[in-house]
């Protein structure tokens, strides 16, 4: 009951189906915080799965690139998650045409994203909903992975997972095919798409529906063949899809005009069709792209949203 008075709720900033978000202050140190108040009434199965996942996984992770869960408390039979206050997200930055950003800025955001993803994966946690909207930005410029409502432990080999995860545009090909076994490679695919979106300033593969997403994905990146992905023919839907040739390097260069060869290598590595061959977070983090100039922008010097 200390917690109730320790944190003030000052302004409602969002309301979803299962939670209301407030900004407030932690009284003891004046720290700005966000409180996610999870609605509990109206859920006949008790505590909601998304809320459980969020609490479960955030409690395990302390990392500069993962949103900090400061505290959890119960009040009036509602579950309250006290989170660090993160006023912006990457989607807002991408969409704000008045903001210009450089290749060094993109590199910095990608670096922080990959560090966060690496931390999840080494803790055997899959995020399963990476998108610009879930990459939040702290006032000091640090990028933080947020929204662990779809996260889960990496499956053991015999376990079945649901393929109905990740927001459509960021969904890896194995998920589009309905795979019941998958790995951290699904998160890396999402990061690859986010990387492309940062360079293009528009969503890279905006499918209109699940069927269209398959078409859009393979039209841009080529339909995988069983030569580079032998297991592909085990997916029932594979035989029904249109076959597109993969893009040539030249076509990629034309699409991503400012990208260096190393940048294209990392992006293509993350957007490899066969999940076994897709780059791991460590491979990305240790790639030439992060060694070559320009150096990633220091987080505090990254472009910010204009103050309203």
């Amino acid at each position, binding site marked *: 009951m200390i917690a109730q008075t320790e944190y003030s709720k000052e302004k409602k900033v969002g309301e979803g189906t299962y939670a209301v978000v407030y900004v407030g202050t932690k009284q003891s140190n004046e720290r700005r915080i966000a409180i996610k108040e999870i609605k509990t009434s109206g859920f006949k199965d008790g505590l909601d799965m998304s809320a459980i996942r969020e609490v479960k996984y955030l409690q*395990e992770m302390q990392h500069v690139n993962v949103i900090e869960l400061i505290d959890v408390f119960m009040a009036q039979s509602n579950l309250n998650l006290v989170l660090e206050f993160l006023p912006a997200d990457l989607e807002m930055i991408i969409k704000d045409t008045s903001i210009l950003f450089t290749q060094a800025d993109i590199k910095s955001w990608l670096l922080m994203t990959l560090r966060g993803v690496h931390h999840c994966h*080494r803790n055997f946690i899959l995020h399963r909903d990476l998108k610009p909207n879930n990459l939040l930005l702290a006032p000091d410029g640090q990028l933080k992975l947020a929204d662990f409502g779809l996260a889960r432990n990496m499956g053991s080999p015999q376990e079945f997972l649901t393929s109905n995860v990740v927001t459509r545009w960021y969904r890896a090909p194995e998920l589009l095919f309905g795979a019941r076994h998958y790995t951290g490679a699904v998160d890396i695919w999402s990061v690859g798409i986010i990387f492309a979106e940062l360079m293009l300033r528009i969503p890279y593969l905006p499918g209109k529906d699940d069927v269209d997403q398959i078409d859009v994905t393979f039209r841009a990146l080529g339909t995988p063949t069983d030569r580079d992905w032998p297991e592909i023919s085990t997916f029932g839907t594979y035989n029904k899809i249109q076959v597109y040739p993969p893009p040539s390097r030249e076509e990629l260069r034309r699409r991503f005009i400012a990208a260096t060869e190393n940048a294209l290598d990392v992006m293509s590595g993350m957007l490899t069709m066969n999940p076994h061959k897709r780059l791991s977070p460590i491979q990305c983090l240790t790639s030439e792209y992060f060694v070559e100039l320009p150096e990633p922008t220091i987080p505090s010097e990254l472009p910010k949203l204009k103050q309203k």
Partner: protein
Amino acid sequence: MTAKVKEEPIGDKPVSSSLRITDDDLYRHSTQYRNWSFTPERLDQIRTEVNASAGSKAEKTLKQFLESHPELSREEEEAVASKAVPVTTHEELLLVNYFARMIISFAGKMNLPTEVAATAVAFFRRFFLSNSVMDIPPKEVFHTTLFFACKTENYFIGVESFAKKAKTTTDAILKHEFKLLESLNFTLMNHHPYKALHGFFLDIQNVLSGRVDMKYMGQVYTNCKKSISDALLTDAVYFYTPPQITLAILLMEDEALMMRYMQLKFGLQPDNGDGSGQSSQDSEQVSSNGINASKLLEVIKSCRSVINNKIIPAKDDAVKITAKIHYCQNPMAVIDRLKRQRESSSIASTPQPVETDSKRQKT
């Protein structure tokens, strides 16, 4: 919620290879380590405190009861004093273990995955590190922990179908869900030894390649999996890490095999025949994977003795303890029982079986 470990956030800065984050570092950041690992002394202290606080509350209730019922005869007062006795720390432990054991068999009957059952047991036992069986009867949170474990382990079953399968009501299942979450300090991740077992199972075959029979290893694996479920009912889970527990279980299953494995894997020196196992000079030896083999063996052996020290409470004990709790909460029940006994003996002059009342109490 307990304060988070405030230290250098891992992975923030580029580190040289010697400073790489190891799996042990990651485990030390887990809530299982930070919140739910104790020294034996600390664990004893926690249990004693929980019991003492609930016990004194029960004493107070009894005192108030006797004060507000001056009409009771001396015989009745004595009956209350002898039947309504707050339970001891040891009795609490017996009762919790009795129900924890039942969770495993119940989960088996419901065909729930092993990990779900293991998590339910962990939740249930942790719940009674901050609540006394005198305050919340174990059978009231029995289904709650299992249902909640299904959700946290991503094995969702709707509360209605769960209630139907478990032959209880949805209200009974959900009644203490918040209390459970709060008692768990909002920490829900569990690392069980089953994954470690699978890892060692594969590694033993690799390290002792050609020298172990595959079919035999399969048998070892199956036996160990069962032994792990048993070990989860002991305090080993609070004192040791999942891989340590797994190694202890493997050692119990086939000591010769494990000694050979540990010699090859961790550079453990073979037993020099005097029974001491290690000569003092090599006790500090550290193998190429950074593990001090003799230290490891020592830890595993002490873990083994904790696992061997398991408590298997008899049903009778559970019934007796439950009756005590019932009488503490309802001292009037002692009087009613006494009256009924008197009446029936005066009518039929055949005394009722003494157990009747406590049996009605049983789960």
